[in-house]
């Protein structure tokens, strides 16, 4: 199935689609209010872009510095070239410590690497502790949004799910009740886990420390209780100095959910006493993107999710309509960077309206990225023959006045017939030609 087909399924339930659109628009509105409360907002975006640009240009240097400084503080640093290596490293650490139960806070990287099934197939119980991710995990589903993983679900659906999985009382979908029930269930998981896995929002090269932002405190509880903490990050998560962090934390939460700051912004700078801390730094295709001048800006992304909330397509097709683990505009760009041939439909799943580019906190030119992937898609010969031919024909007609005028006349003559054929989708009437075209009127005026 391609994006269109999945979108069509999503839109079949008009009321549900409308609800989804409104829910995300509400987040966009909260974001607007939060952003507008910071008068230097556009300067912050500019600064964030420049810092990322510099870091990505000198990524090798900052990675080495980071690893050196982290090691000095007793953190064990690992490098993984791909998802497989990442998963194996994580597993070997857990195995060494005889970990059978692990709690995980939100990490899109571990989704990308499909860490959960890898560990589960080796006998390790993995519990996602972010509420949204826990819901998705209990459903055997996948996140439909990078910040709001369960945004595609209504509270009634979650109530039903909890009835079945957590044996809560029937028919109660009160959000507070559901959250408390999830909390009770998770509390037990936290207490029994021997290992904690977290993602990384920012890795500070200067200090060798990492910063994790959550709203639920789940990363903090998990890492405080377990004896091993494994933090997983992509190579692009670096920032040079601690003083740069404020630029990003000010942008991140406001742009993501409209909060001035995430409830928890935790700095992990060294392992606690008698505990171990590991950082796994993953490439998994990122250095390929880095090599590409036109597209390396995609690595600036700080995963705020705002491009999803503002995207009129995403809001009306849902995160699962995208074939990549990260949906929405940035997801389409990353999917195209990885495998343009099989994700080409995502480059076209956009009106190029540019709202994503305007909202991006690090100024990734998202809609231009999609535009340029369309060009590459065609240049590499991935566009089907029929489509290619129709463009060729249309261009030929438009370049030749004789054929152009003849086809316009034909359209007019056959309009009564054509208008019955739903040529522009069932929901649209075919535009009716005017009695006289401008060309005809103009000629008469001359």
């Amino acid at each position, binding site marked *: 199935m391609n994006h269109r087909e999945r979108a069509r399924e999503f*839109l079949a339930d008009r009321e549900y689609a409308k609800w989804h659109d409104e829910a995300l628009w509400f987040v966009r509105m909260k974001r607007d209010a939060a952003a507008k409360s910071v008068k230097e907002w556009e300067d912050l975006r500019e600064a964030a872009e420049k810092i990322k640009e510099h870091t990505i240009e000198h990524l090798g240097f900052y990675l080495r510095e980071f690893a050196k400084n982290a090691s000095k503080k007793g953190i064990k640093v690992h490098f993984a070239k791909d998802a497989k290596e990442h998963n194996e490293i994580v597993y070997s650490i857990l195995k060494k410590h005889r970990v059978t139960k692990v709690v995980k806070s939100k990490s899109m990287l571990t989704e990308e690497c499909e860490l959960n099934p890898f560990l589960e197939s080796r006998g390790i119980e993995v519990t996602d502790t972010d509420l949204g991710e826990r819901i998705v995990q209990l459903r055997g589903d996948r996140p439909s949004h990078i910040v709001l993983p369960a945004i595609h679900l209504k509270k009634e659906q979650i109530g039903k799910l909890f009835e079945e999985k957590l044996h809560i009382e029937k028919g109660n979908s009160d959000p507070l009740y559901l959250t408390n029930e999830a909390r009770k269930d998770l509390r037990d998981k936290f207490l029994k886990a021997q290992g904690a896995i977290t993602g990384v929002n920012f890795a500070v090269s200067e200090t060798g420390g990492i910063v994790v932002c959550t709203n639920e405190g789940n990363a903090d509880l998990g890492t405080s209780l377990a004896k091993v903490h494994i933090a997983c990050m992509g190579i692009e998560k670096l920032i040079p100095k601690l003083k740069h962090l404020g630029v990003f934390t000010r942008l991140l939460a406001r742009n993501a959910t409209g909060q001035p700051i995430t409830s928890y912004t935790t700095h992990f700078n060294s392992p606690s006493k008698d505990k171990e801390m590991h950082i796994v730094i993953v490439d998994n295709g990122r250095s390929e993107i880095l090599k590409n001048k036109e597209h390396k800006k995609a690595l600036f992304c700080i995963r705020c999710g705002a491009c999803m909330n503002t995207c009129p397509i995403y809001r009306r097709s849902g995160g699962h309509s995208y074939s990549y683990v990260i949906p929405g505009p940035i997801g389409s760009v990353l999917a195209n960077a990885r495998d343009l041939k099989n994700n080409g439909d995502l480059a076209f799943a956009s*009106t190029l309206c540019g709202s994503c580019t305007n909202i991006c906190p690090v100024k990734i030119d998202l809609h231009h990225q999609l535009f340029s992937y369309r060009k590459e898609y065609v240049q590499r010969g991935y*566009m089907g023959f029929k489509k290619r031919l129709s*463009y060729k024909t249309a261009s030929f007609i438009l*370049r030749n006045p004789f054929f152009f005028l003849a086809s316009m006349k034909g359209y007019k003559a056959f309009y009564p017939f054509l208008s019955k054929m739903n040529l522009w*989708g069932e929901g649209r009437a075919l535009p009716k030609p005017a009695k006289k075209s401008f060309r005809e009127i103009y000629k008469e005026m001359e």
Partner: protein
Amino acid sequence: MKRVGLFIPCYIDVFYPNAALSTLKILKDLGYEVDYPLNQSCCGQPFLNSGVFSEAKGLAEKFIEIFKDFDYVIAPSASCVATVRYRYRELLKPSKELEKIIANTYEICEFLHDVVKLKELRVSFPHRVGFHQSCHGLRELELGVGSELVKPQYSKVKYLLNLVKDIEIVDLKRPDECCGFGGTFSINEPEISIAMGRDRIEDHKKAGAEYIVGYDMSCLMHMEAIAKRENEDIKFLHVVEILAGADDES
């Protein structure tokens, strides 16, 4: 006297001659010598936006050939102007002619605001209108400031509409959300495209608009097509039709 080459996108020529006539009338009234070269058709935008650069090239070359000798090229279509201004350099070899055309091609409202610096209008339009800010005009040509940006809000086109007497511009819930047209997107993903258009129309209707007006006729054409299918009682006009003194029969 400055010579203006009128660029009328093919669909405006056939479906919306009044938008073209209004552009012509306004420019003539302002004293410009306006010519409409008859061998024109398309700027190449649909091909560029579909990634088919090879097919856009011939059309772009033709566009340059037709319009190279004019002082200004003016079109009642923001997305076509954005294509010329921001995409032609990627498509064509650098040349003086190309740079001249890029510098002198304007969307009609942009031209009235930036070049003519229109201060007053003697037309009246006693109706409630919803103003649709098409994306390429808004975020590429910067005819206004996108609602995502933390900058003082301003719209060149709204400024012009406010010069019209007795007009009332209604407040929309989503002042600059895309209508879902997107050129070939409307064909590739008709379901989302139509859902988006429907939502836009609803927003305008709930705000009490009798007319949806805009500077990109293609977006209006898409929404009009939906409104017709759903028997919605709402009318569509290009802003320039109002500025030129549109009557209700148009």
